[in-house]
């Protein structure tokens, strides 16, 4: 593991540094994935541009319509933000099961997205919340729907010098709710075998106005179960409908076998997990 580290004081400073480097550089924030990948030789970089000093990207801004989470917020920053997690319980549930405390004190939300692991917990929760990803590059800013960020394991649609600045989640008021559930071999310090996040919004009459179902570790990237979402929309969510939606979600998965679990196990588990997540979410909304 050998590289030169360049500390950036702002996004523009980072672009200036990047312009002077030969290809093969990377950004680093917390480094909890990247340093391990570099040491194992899974990724290589001759130069790293350190973003961790850009303190402006470590704030959570609240407005009437949304929360804007700085990409450099750690998982602990996220789980400890009372207003944010009250409104989006799925975010807290996901942030507090990422690694152990040592990882959550350092690993960042932006990194959880940019590293693009199909099993990334916070990424799955943000996918169910339809987050907008605010990206900055040398030629300006753009906004990406989170569903359009992930390509495959380790690959995103970010262009070479682009960085994630903020992640925005829209507030939907009292009639919306989110849930994140995870299955692993143990309760803590575990990479997800399967994860599911569900976000539902009901109208005043208890009819499902919108549904988002995101699944982790059952495909090459965090997945949306779009057929299952469509089934719930415009309907009163009862047990029979939940069972049908969970079966549809299962069929939308393309899990792989790896040392943590077989594809068959993941397929069996995801159906039950989705069923439970929708049921919990709907129950919280009808209370």
């Amino acid at each position, binding site marked *: 593991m*050998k*590289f030169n580290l360049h500390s950036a004081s702002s996004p523009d400073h980072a672009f200036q540094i990047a312009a002077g480097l030969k290809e093969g550089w990377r950004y680093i924030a917390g*480094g*909890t994935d990247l340093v391990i990948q570099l040491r*194992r030789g899974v990724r290589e970089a001759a130069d790293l541009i*350190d973003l961790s000093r850009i303190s402006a990207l470590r704030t959570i801004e609240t407005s009437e319509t949304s929360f804007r989470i700085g990409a450099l917020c750690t998982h602990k920053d996220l789980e400890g933000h009372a207003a944010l997690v009250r409104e989006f319980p799925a975010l807290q549930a996901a942030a507090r099961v990422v*690694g152990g405390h040592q990882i959550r*004190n350092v690993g960042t939300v932006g990194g959880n997205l940019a590293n693009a692991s199909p099993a990334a917990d916070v990424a799955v929760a943000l996918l169910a919340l339809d987050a907008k990803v605010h990206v900055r590059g040398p030629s300006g800013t753009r906004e990406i729907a989170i569903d359009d960020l992930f390509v495959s394991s380790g690959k995103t649609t970010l262009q070479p010098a682009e960085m994630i600045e903020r992640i925005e989640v829209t507030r939907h008021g009292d009639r919306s709710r989110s849930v994140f559930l995870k299955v692993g071999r143990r309760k*803590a310090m575990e990479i997800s075998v399967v994860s599911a996040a569900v976000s539902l919004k009901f109208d005043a009459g208890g009819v499902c106005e919108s549904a988002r179902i995101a699944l982790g570790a059952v495909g090459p990237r965090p997945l949306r179960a779009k057929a299952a979402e469509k089934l719930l929309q415009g309907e009163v969510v009862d047990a029979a409908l939940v069972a049908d939606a969970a079966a549809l979600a299962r069929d939308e998965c393309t899990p792989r076998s790896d040392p943590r679990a077989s594809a068959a196990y993941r397929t069996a588990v995801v159906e039950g997990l989705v069923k439970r997540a929708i049921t919990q979410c709907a129950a919280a909304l009808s209370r």
Partner: protein
Amino acid sequence: MRRGAVTVSKMKELNLKVNGEQWEVQAKDFDTLLDVLRRELALTGTKSNCLEGECGVCAVLVNGRVVNSCILLAAQCEGAEITTIEGMADGEKLHALQQSFLDRGAVQCGYCIPGMIMSAAGFLKENPSPTPDEIREGLCGTLCRCTGYTKIVEAVHEAAQNMSAK
């Protein structure tokens, strides 16, 4: 000097406050905090093992928060306050966690204990009066391969009580 494709970076100055003392040390860009603590400052209480952030025996506090020093780049700690196991005791007087680990016999081979104590110290700042289950979750990032968790959890519980009684 060239090694492989990468021009090996020179030593740079790094300012760290370690266990209350200000240090100016020499570090390469790819040194981890663990490398600097053990090699430059000879603080070998912090252990080196998996080097992948899995086992937690390298845990130290950076600005009061527990981190794995094996995967944190030293250069990213410029200006930070670091506490290692060597900085826990106050002179001859052991920290409450060290004392309770001794009193409870929570140490088997001992290799994970500096990491366990630093993990517990970080965790107790966030949750000063935890239940035994919360302690188990709080220590989840540090592994004891002797599997001596029962007494470790008891020791942390006792230390928490002693610390909040003060």
